[in-house]
């Protein structure tokens, strides 16, 4: 059977199509958000939050909730708001706080999973591994999950389109933006909430350890090849979604873990972009 036939065969399953739709949408949102996160030097917040989300997920799992999101999402949003709300003066402390928080959440989460293995799964190592590195659960997404994901992604994209100029101003120079009457604080909190939502969403795709890759890599790649903010946003969104698409397709082909494959595709594209940038005479 040729590769093409195999894909045609796979794509005839709605589960595979769902996985691709969700994966690409998640990657699109993360890379859009990534532009402000990376340019505002907040990459570490994404990383910290994903660990917090893991901790919350672990706790939720051992209580065997019907829907883990009901715990994970609020907790992550809360922590995001606290972390983003701290102002610049306390940045150094904030940095350490995030490190403490993320490692702490990781340790507590692992411990909780070991102490109280959930009723509906006897396999602790499997649970941990899939929530850290992403699971194949993306291949079992039902119609409802897909719709939730589509709606949330549309919200994120709308947020970006409608507030594009304000986001640019706040990202570039928060003080100036505030001086001309933009509510920088408000945007910080909005951003915090959206980051949390996107992180919780992308846990399904790549797992909590790898989320930062989805957020950071597309922007860094885009920065190498284009120079205006607008084109960085667009390029990053395109690179992010294409990498996710390619990664998912490859992982189906080679039966490799989806998360890791998507991230590796991102790494390769990043290296290509560095080379391209060098060739065309950019830093």
């Amino acid at each position, binding site marked *: 059977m040729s590769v093409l036939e195999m894909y045609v065969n796979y794509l005839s399953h709605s589960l595979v199509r769902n996985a691709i739709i969700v994966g690409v949408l998640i990657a699109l949102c993360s890379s859009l958000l990534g532009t402000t996160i990376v*340019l505002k*030097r907040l990459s570490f917040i994404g990383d910290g939050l994903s660990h917090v989300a893991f901790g919350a997920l672990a706790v939720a799992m051992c209580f065997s909730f019907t829907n883990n999101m009901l715990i994970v999402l609020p907790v992550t949003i809360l922590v995001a708001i606290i972390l983003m709300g701290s102002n*610049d003066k306390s940045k150094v402390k904030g940095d350490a706080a995030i490190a403490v928080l993320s490692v702490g959440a990781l340790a507590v989460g692992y411990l909780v999973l070991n102490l109280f293995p959930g009723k509906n799964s006897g396999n602790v190592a499997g649970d941990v591994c899939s929530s850290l590195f992403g699971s194949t659960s993306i291949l079992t997404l039902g119609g409802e999950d897909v719709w939730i994901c589509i709606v949330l992604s549309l919200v994120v994209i709308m947020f970006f*389109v*409608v*507030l*594009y*100029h*304000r986001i*640019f*101003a706040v990202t*570039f*120079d*928060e*003080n*100036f*933006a*505030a*001086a*001309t*009457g*933009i509510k920088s604080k408000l945007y910080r909190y909005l951003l915090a909430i959206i980051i949390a939502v996107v992180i919780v969403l992308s846990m399904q795709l790549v797992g909590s350890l790898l989320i930062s890759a989805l957020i950071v890599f597309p922007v860094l790649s885009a*920065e190498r090849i*284009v*120079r*205006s*903010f*607008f084109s*960085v946003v667009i390029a990053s969104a395109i690179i992010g979604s294409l990498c996710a698409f390619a990664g998912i397709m490859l992982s189906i082909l080679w039966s490799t873990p989806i998360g890791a494959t998507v991230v590796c595709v991102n790494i390769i594209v990043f290296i290509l972009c560095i080379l391209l940038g060098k060739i065309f005479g950019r*830093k």
Partner: protein
Amino acid sequence: MAQIQGIDVSLGYEKRIVANNINFEINQGDYLYIVGENGSGKSTLMKCILGLEKAVGGSIKYGDGLRQKEIGYLPQQSNIQRDFPATVQEIVLSGCLNRLGWKPFFGKKEKEIAKEAMRKLEISDLAMRSYPELSGGQQQRVLLARALCATSKMLILDEPVTGLDPYAQEQLYAMIYKINKEEKITIIMVSHDMEAAKMYASHILHIGGEKCVFCTKQEFIKENGGCLF
């Protein structure tokens, strides 16, 4: 009424008072120099005027049709990253945001304003260049153009010439002076450059510990012989 009137303003952070009893009055078309030692509270006063910080005492009143959000601002060393990917045009245009109201996007009018600002600061030919690739002086002019987009009434410039070579300094001073004279835009400038103050200022506000003096340039030169500290 004056555009801005400060009455017994005290500046500080948390419990610590930085400067006391600052009185001043700024009218349309004035060119105010704010001078004082490092750490005397000049930038803090600017932030209070802009509403980024709160004065711990006294009051700052706005009049003559000036609203707080209509002041153009050039921050001291802003926390702008050197390698931020943005073109000159994008940055200058972002100064027009306070004109947008609830509209999400810029229209013809804002683009025209941005173009005009770039023309005034002689950076029209840099419009499509990327900001990190510019020299310090060029970057400063871009930020000044952005500030100009945000206002038709008042500019607050916090040490705009720091780090520029003497020639670029002169050029920037000349541009600011021209904006002040030709468009009657009030200028408030923080600076350590007394020579420039003597040349361009109409008023001088000296901030420092107990003694805060507000006077016209002529009075200042007569009293201190132009010597500051």
